[in-house]
């Protein structure tokens, strides 16, 4: 299972998303590789990803993808991430 966290720079917000997604996955007892990357690299980084995590601003920029796109409102809310990952992966 591969999950990609996307932000504008690939440093900062996607890193926080990665850390908290890993916490949410641990709660769900799901094993997955979570990587952080920037929107320019998304086509390559997310080519074989099952799930893309990002903020509302990037959804339209993602383009065509087979991955489930999860839009995150509060990056620090592990409950929100857990609930959304559970729906996407359950």
């Amino acid at each position: 299972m591969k999950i990609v966290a996307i932000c504008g720079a690939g440093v900062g917000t996607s890193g926080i998303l990665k850390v908290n997604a890993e916490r949410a996955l641990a709660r769900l007892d799901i094993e997955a590789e979570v990587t952080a990357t920037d929107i320019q690299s998304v086509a390559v980084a997310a080519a074989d990803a099952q799930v893309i995590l990002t903020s509302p601003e990037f959804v339209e920029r993602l383009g065509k993808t087979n991955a489930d796109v999860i839009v995150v409102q509060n990056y620090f809310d592990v409950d929100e991430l857990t609930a959304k990952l559970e729906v996407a992966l359950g």
Partner: protein
Amino acid sequence: MLALSDAGILLGQTADDWRAAVLLSAAALEAAGVAEASYGERMIAMVEEFGAYIVIAPGLALAHARPGPDVRESGMSVVTLAEPVVFGHPYNDPVSVVIGLAVTNADDHVSGVAELANVFNDATAIDRLATARSVAEVRAVFDVSA
């Protein structure tokens, strides 16, 4: 934790708009010796290009740009606003706390932001920063000594 010096903490600031708020966080990074002035313009350019995605939680903006020659060392700044400012985020406006983040390379940032995530996974952290009246109160939130 990413370095946070006293010079990098500015409380009760006034900003007319989000650009001014981001520039305050850049000024704090500059005062802390973390980044040069041009870094602030690069942080603004990120928002102009991609939107207000840096507002990652209610009331909190994580202003940052990519590593570059204007980043002297990895570190952060904390700016609180007397009056919250709208960044244009669909859920998390208005912003009272701007964290300025600068890293010299992408690897640095991963361990640093992991600890930042620890701090803000406490849902009270943003409010406690927004209402902090002293550098010591800010440090208490991050639980780091000078």
